[in-house]
């Protein structure tokens, strides 16, 4: 499903060039769960952003479902994000002015779906249907992240990308988050790519990619 070939990414910071990824090759199959680990600055988030079509590589090719993504326009990239990709962030990134339900609905909006029953159902998957009318500020961190999971999954995208989903949570809520991600993965058979610092979380995945200084240094299959 995902094929990265000799991907490099160079950021230009003022006059200095910062090489974040230097020749990454990676294949991820449909339905796989993959954790990306590595020290900070190793390029984990950059890989996730590239896979998520939020960014394009400096060189190399990225194929998503056989389509070469690095040649697409910004509008086409947005369309792929809307149709195929669900994002989960470390800082939850819910819109504070919207209720939990409206936040979940927002996850479908740009895919052209407006269906509050479906949004309610998604909140039910993460056990929050009774908090649908609450604003994010009225929810705990773990609950906010569950709303974010519902938002990412409500349109049933084939690819779920999670950027340190447990990074801002205590270990118990963190475990709950990982287990609901895995449970929903099993139910919906999506592809899950997760960046994490936390070895326990990573061990729920089928494969762990170790990244260092913009290169893959090790791969474990569990």
């Amino acid at each position, binding site marked *: 499903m995902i094929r990265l070939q000799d991907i490099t990414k160079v950021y230009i910071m003022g006059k200095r060039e910062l090489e974040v990824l230097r020749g990454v090759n990676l294949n991820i199959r449909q339905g796989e769960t993959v954790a990306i680990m590595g020290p900070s600055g190793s390029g984990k988030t950059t890989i996730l*952003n590239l896979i*998520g079509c*939020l*960014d394009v590589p400096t060189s190399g090719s990225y194929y998503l479902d056989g389509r070469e993504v690095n040649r697409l326009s*910004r*509008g086409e990239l*947005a*369309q*792929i*994000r*809307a*149709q195929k*990709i669900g*994002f989960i*962030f470390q800082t939850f*990134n819910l*819109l504070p*002015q*919207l209720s939990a339900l409206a936040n979940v609905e*927002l*996850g479908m*909006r*740009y*895919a*052209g779906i*407006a269906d*509050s029953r479906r949004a309610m159902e998604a909140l039910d998957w993460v056990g929050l249907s009774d908090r649908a009318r609450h604003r994010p500020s009225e929810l705990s961190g773990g609950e906010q992240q569950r709303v974010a999971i519902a*938002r990412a999954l409500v349109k049933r995208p084939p690819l779920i990308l999670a950027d340190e989903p447990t990074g801002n949570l205590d270990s118990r809520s963190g475990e709950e988050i990982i287990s609901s991600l895995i449970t929903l993965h099993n139910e919906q058979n999506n592809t899950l790519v997760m960046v994490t610092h936390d070895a326990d979380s990573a061990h729920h995945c089928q494969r762990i990619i170790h990244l260092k200084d913009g290169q893959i240094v090790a791969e474990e299959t569990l």
Partner: protein
Amino acid sequence: MKRWLEPLSTAWEGVRTHKLRSSLTILGIVIGVAAVITLMSIGRGTSAEILSRIESLGSNLVLITPGAFSERGVMSAAGSAANLTLEDAAAISEQVPHVTAVAPSSSARSQLIAGGKNTNASVIGVTPEYQQVYNLKTTEGAFISPSNYQDAANVAVIGTTVKDDLFSGVDPIGQQIRMGNSVVSVMGVLESKGASMMGSTDDAVLVPLTTLQQTISQRLTSTGEHVVNSVAITVSDQKQSDDVVNEITSLLRSRHQLAAGAADDFTIRSMEELIGTVTEMSNTMTNLLGAIAGISLLVGGIGVMNIMLVSVVERTREIGIRKALGARERNIWSQFLTESAFLSLSGGLIGVAAGWIVSHIVSSRGTPTLVSPDIIVLAVSVSIGIGLAFGFLPARRAANLNPIEALRYE
């Protein structure tokens, strides 16, 4: 929720989240639109009133006075030259087509005495057609009749000011007025018309022209014709005004035996021409007022842009989130543009209501106002236009944000 409603509901979310800020932005537009509507309605109302006063004289009036306008537009001896005559008037009546009535008149100022009171007023010698031409009505009694005219009867029709000066509290009909060496009896009182560009009949005494010629002044030209001060004419159809003016000009030139290159020794003004001039002037005034008010609308628009720019910066992260969820540039763009159009449109609508109320208050204080639909349409569409124009830059800025940087923004 329908799809086309989504930009609207998103815009509404944005407005609702920042109630105070949105209301202040709207207020700027409200004041601008209300100012445009109020000032333009005052301009329109005033010019409509002026025009209706002129038209009350009869919009198909053509006025001939002796003497010519000088080159610089200053009236040189107009009215004092003694070359327009009763016989000219008769010739016009007989020979010029599309003329419905011809009213020659002569006037003189005279001291009037009635009972113990006296006043100074202009005495106008008129023919019975004068009533029709100048659209006069009598509130009491009757107007001068053809037989009064033929008999040079010693009768008079008086204006309301004269009536108040000489006969306050007394029924004026049948009362005697002394003017100079003769005495006339009042046979009618004219309805008040207020001041107008053609002078007022309120402080005049109308007598048959024949009576005036016999009693106060009798001037003859060298050829023995009877001199008058002016000849007023009504034209059957306003569209014929220009033709009639041309015909009268050539008729009078031949009667006055003017050589081909010589200037006219009379002046013809049609009411249509006067209305045109007044309309032009009042439109200029209205547009000037509108432009002044437009400046405050512009300032309101800049306020909208300012707020939208702040809003884009403040919601950078939200924009990043929406982009990550798959929003395309045009989604973001239309979200912010809808929001600014929403702000300025609601400002525009409230402004229309406010301007309408204010112009009602103004008109209840005596200044005529006229809120016409085109002003409302103009003000509302200008306010939407302002929202779109001044929302454009902020919306572009929002749409062009890099999603990764936007997501990282704190």
